[in-house]
Every structure is written in structure tokens, then in C-alpha cells.
């Protein structure tokens, strides 16, 4: 009899201890959860706050610098038509992005294919060197010689000049991404095409390109996003405002000419930002957001 009572009390003791520790664990878990939600709300507030203005001002009949619930109107978008530089600058951005994308994707695809399939002597050293070069030679660190170079080659105020400069900077990373894609595709199709007498260029066009299409899409989107947002290179190389892309015109709109026209600035910023956002949503919904480390510059 006494034996069982000892066991009972022991069990009772153990259960109260575990209950107490369980209670402290749940208290801790609740506190942790409250802490986490507070933190995430603060993060949400911090990241959303600067963006509020872009969401409200374009639709406000009296836009100010303060983000506030707008008195809804679409009249502000009419100012876009009145400004001689706004809409043409978007067209300039399209020219630059399209030009660079065509150049980067076609050149990089050819180079990546050759580097992936043929063992050119010194290939690994070349790739290593290119990657190193593209990460250290940034537009910021070489703005002086870039300006000089463009000046001497008569490429100031030339769209081609800006496209070439931007493409040169983007190519190494583009070759890298595409080589990765090509390395993972099997070579058996190419071998059989070769048996049937297809020329190397035919093989690239009809077999390699369709197979690595996701890679080409990635590089295209990445190039367009980079060129679309790039400020420094067109800022350095375009003097004439009618050649400048939207990135530079936005800056001009709020730094030059006294009081900024907020109706124009807000609608124009929104219109100029929209393509990147749409592209991003498209890519992440279609392909899932692929994480390529070291891509954004």
C-alpha cells in the first residue's frame, strides 16, 4: 500500500512540474508569436510607407508631397500629353531596352553555346576573368573613361552608344546564366541533327534555341529590367533632353525648373514603373521566382 502511494505522489509531482514547464513554454510561444507579428507589421509599414505616395498622388485632384486619401480623378494623366518630353522619353526607354536585349541575348547565346559545347583552350580562365571583370568594372567606377570614350567615338547623344555601353556591362553575366542553362541540356539532339547533315547555325536555331528558351527569357527580362532602370549611363551620355530615357526625365522633372509639377511627376513615375512590375509578376507567376544570386547590379 505504502509503495503505491509513493509512486502516486511521485507521478503527481512530475505532472505538476511538466504542467508548469508546459505553461512556461506556451507563454514563451505566445510572446514569441506576438513579437514576430509586431516585427512583421513594422516591416510592412516601413516598406509600404514610401510607396504610398505613388499609389495616391496620381489620382489626387490636388496632389501634394503628402500621401493622403485622394479626391479621385484621372485628369492628372492628361498632363503627360502636355509635356513634350514625358511620353517620348518612354519611347526612348523602349528603344534602349529593346536594342540592348536583342544584342545581349543573341551575342550571349552564341558565346554561351560555343563555350558550353566546345573546349576552347583557356575556357575556364576566360569565364572566370569575365565574371570578375563585370563585377568590378561598374558604370560608377568607370564613369570618367566611359564619358571620354563616348566623347571620342562621337557617341554622345547616340542611342547606339548607350546600348553598346550597357550591353558590354551586361554580357558577361548573361553568358554565365545561359551557359548554365546550356550545360544542363542534353547534347543528343544536336548529335542526331548533325548526323542528318544540319549546319552548326541551323542546329543553334532549330534545336538549341527552343530547348533553352526559359534561359533566353530569363536573360531578356533581366536585361530589359536593368536597362529600363539604369540612370547613370544615359545621364552621362545624353545631353539632349529629347533623347533621354524616362529614368533621366523623372530626375529632371523634380530637380529642374523650380516647383515640380506633381500631377505630371506622379503619373509619369507610375506609368514608367508599371512595366517592371508587370514583367516581374509575369515572370514569377509563369516560371516561379528563380533565384539567381549575383545578378542584379
Amino acid at each position, binding site marked *: 500500500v505504502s509503495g503505491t502511494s509513493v509512486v502516486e505522489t511521485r507521478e503527481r509531482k512530475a505532472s505538476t512540474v511538466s504542467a508548469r514547464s508546459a505553461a512556461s513554454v506556451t507563454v514563451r510561444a505566445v510572446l*514569441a508569436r506576438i513579437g514576430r*507579428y509586431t516585427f*512583421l507589421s513594422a*516591416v510592412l509599414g516601413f*516598406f*509600404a*510607407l*514610401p*510607396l504610398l505616395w505613388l499609389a495616391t498622388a496620381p489620382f489626387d485632384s490636388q496632389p501634394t*508631397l503628402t500621401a493622403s486619401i485622394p479626391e479621385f480623378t484621372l485628369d492628372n494623366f492628361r498632363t503627360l500629353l502636355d509635356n513634350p518630353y514625358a511620353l517620348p522619353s518612354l519611347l526612348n526607354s523602349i528603344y534602349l531596352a529593346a536594342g540592348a536585349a536583342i*544584342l545581349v541575348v543573341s*551575342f*550571349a547565346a*552564341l*558565346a554561351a*553555346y*560555343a*563555350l558550353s*559545347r*566546345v*573546349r*576552347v*583552350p583557356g575556357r575556364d580562365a576566360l569565364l*572566370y576573368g*569575365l565574371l570578375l571583370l*563585370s*563585377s*568590378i*568594372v561598374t558604370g*560608377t*567606377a568607370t*564613369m*570618367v*573613361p*566611359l*564619358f*571620354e570614350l563616348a566623347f571620342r567615338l562621337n557617341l554622345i547623344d547616340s542611342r547606339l552608344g548607350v546600348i*553598346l555601353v550597357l550591353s*558590354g556591362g551586361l*554580357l*558577361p553575366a548573361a*553568358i554565365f546564366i545561359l551557359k548554365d542553362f546550356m550545360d544542363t541540356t542534353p*547534347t543528343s539532339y544536336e*548529335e542526331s*541533327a*548533325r548526323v542528318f547533315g544540319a549546319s*552548326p547555325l541551323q542546329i543553334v536555331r532549330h534545336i538549341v534555341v527552343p530547348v533553352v528558351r526559359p534561359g533566353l527569357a530569363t536573360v531578356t527580362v533581366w536585361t530589359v529590367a536593368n536597362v529600363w532602370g539604369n*540612370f547613370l549611363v544615359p545621364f*552621362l551620355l545624353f545631353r539632349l533632353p529629347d533623347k533621354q530615357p*524616362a*529614368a*533621366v526625365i523623372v*530626375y529632371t522633372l*523634380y530637380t529642374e525648373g523650380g516647383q515640380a509639377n506633381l500631377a505630371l511627376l506622379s503619373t509619369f*513615375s507610375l506609368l514608367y514603373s508599371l512595366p517592371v*512590375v508587370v514583367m*516581374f509578376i509575369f515572370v514569377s507567376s509563369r516560371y516561379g*521566382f528563380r*533565384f539567381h544570386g549575383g545578378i*542584379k547590379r
Partner: protein
Amino acid sequence: VVQATSRPDETIVGARPEPGAPPDAAGLGRLRAGGFIAPSLLLILAFLVAPAAWTIYLGVTDFRLTGLAAANPQIVGLDNYLAALGDERFHNSLLLTLQFVFGSAVLGQAGLGFAIAWSLRDQRGPLRRMVEAFVLLAWILPSSVVAFLWYALLDRDGGTLNVLLDTPGMAWLLDYPMLSIIIFNTWRGTAFSMMLYGAALGNVPPSHLETARLAGASTWQQLRDVVFPRIRGHVLTNLLLISLWTFNDFAPFLITAGGPEQRSEILPVYVYKVALTGGQLGFGAAISFVMLLINLVIALAYLRMLGRRKERV
């Protein structure tokens, strides 16, 4: 013909055959392969290699945008570098750049990015999607647009921040220019760290964390003993990359233009002002070369790390 062009590849001295990959599947041959690589190489030579080399040359000249030295630049040796060493404004700029990189990249982006990734690690549903969407939005919008958004947010008279904090007339950009651009760049770039750490935390087995928690480890102990040893490579990669990008970031120019009185004049802005506004191309190139060297050191450290990680895998 195809065979004749592809065979030499196999006999290159020292060329190691890659496991599983037949040499030259499409029968390109080395000559045509060279032709495929040439266009890219030419562009890269002209617009990456040449500018870098030219930076070195310009840096030892007294080249100017206008005037006598523009028509007939003289080699001045290391004068530009010596001048930079003794230049108060250059010291100031270097110090501000250090603050900028350490404050906004190392502490700001990496710290906040990890904290967000850690809080979201077992979170699903709308809150996670909202947080991720806004953090990413700050990252993908064009820099001149976000620069104006911050300019408007921090404005002295009508800025949203002053309205929210009820501090009318507070001139954030004039009184705290460095703090402003550090917080701006944290906001701008945290997305990259968040995504990288998010991917890295996916590699930490939840059972290990569970075990540590049951053993009574605090969050800090879990991070130090369970999480960090597994993501050390990611942490280093992230720090090097964001330092490199932040060091070369020109966006602060769009908000403060280096002012007031050079109090936010980080190196990129300094070079722009000295060389392209002030016309001292030679001196600006010398500073650019110093920037290139710093970039080289960071990039070499990064590539060495990548190489080592590949060996381990």
C-alpha cells in the same frame, strides 16, 4: 570535315575530358566556336576592358574637360594619387562610403533581410505574401522613381514622415543626410538578402531546430549553434555581394546630390562631381582607379569563396 575540325579538341595537351559530356556535340569546331564568341568578346573588350585600362592611363595625367590640359594632357605620374592622399574632401568621402556600406549593407540589408527571412520561415498565407511583395517592390522599381519617393517622404514641408511623426519643419535630408541615405539604401536593397537567407534557411532541417528548442535553447542560441554553421557560406556570399553593390551605388546622388556641404558625398558622387561637374578628369580617374581596386579585392574574395564551395560540392 566535321570530324577533322572536332578531332584536334580531343588532343589538346592538358585538356581534361569532362565526365559525361562528349566533346563538341554539334560539330562546331574551334574556329567557328571562336566566331561565336567573338562578338561578345569585342563588345566586352571595347566597353569593359578598355574603360578599365583607360582609367589607369587617365589617372596619371592632368586631363581636364576644358582648357589647355584638355587639348594637350601631360603625364603627371602619381601626382593625382598624392593629391588625393592629402585631400580633406577625399578622406571625408572615403569615411562616408565606409559608413554607407557598413550601415546600409552589412547592418541594414543583411540584418533586416535575415530578420525578415527568419520571421517568415514557417509563415504561410497572406501576411507572408504581403511582406515579400512590398520588400521586392522596393527592389525592382526604377531608382529615379524610388529616389523621388524618398525625397517626397522626407520633405521638410509636406513630407509624409513629418505628418506622421507630427514634426513639422523637420529637414531630415539637411540635418541627417547620411542617416537618410543609409535608411534609404536599406529599404532599397533588403529584398536580395531576404531572398538569399530565405533560401538558405530552407536548408536547415526543422527537426534540428525543434530538438534545440526542446532542449531549452533560446532563439539566440538556436541561431548561433544550429542555424549559423549551416548558412555560413550564404552569409559571406551575401555580405560580399551587397557590399560591392552598395559601394558602387549612385542612387544617393538622386536624393541628396552629396549635400549639404559634402556631408553625404560618398565616393561615386565625389567622382562625378570632381570629374564631370568640376572637369578634373585626370584626378577623377585616379579616384576611380582606387574604386576599381577596392572592387577587385571584394570580388576576388567572393570568387575564391565560390570556388571553394564548388570543390566541397
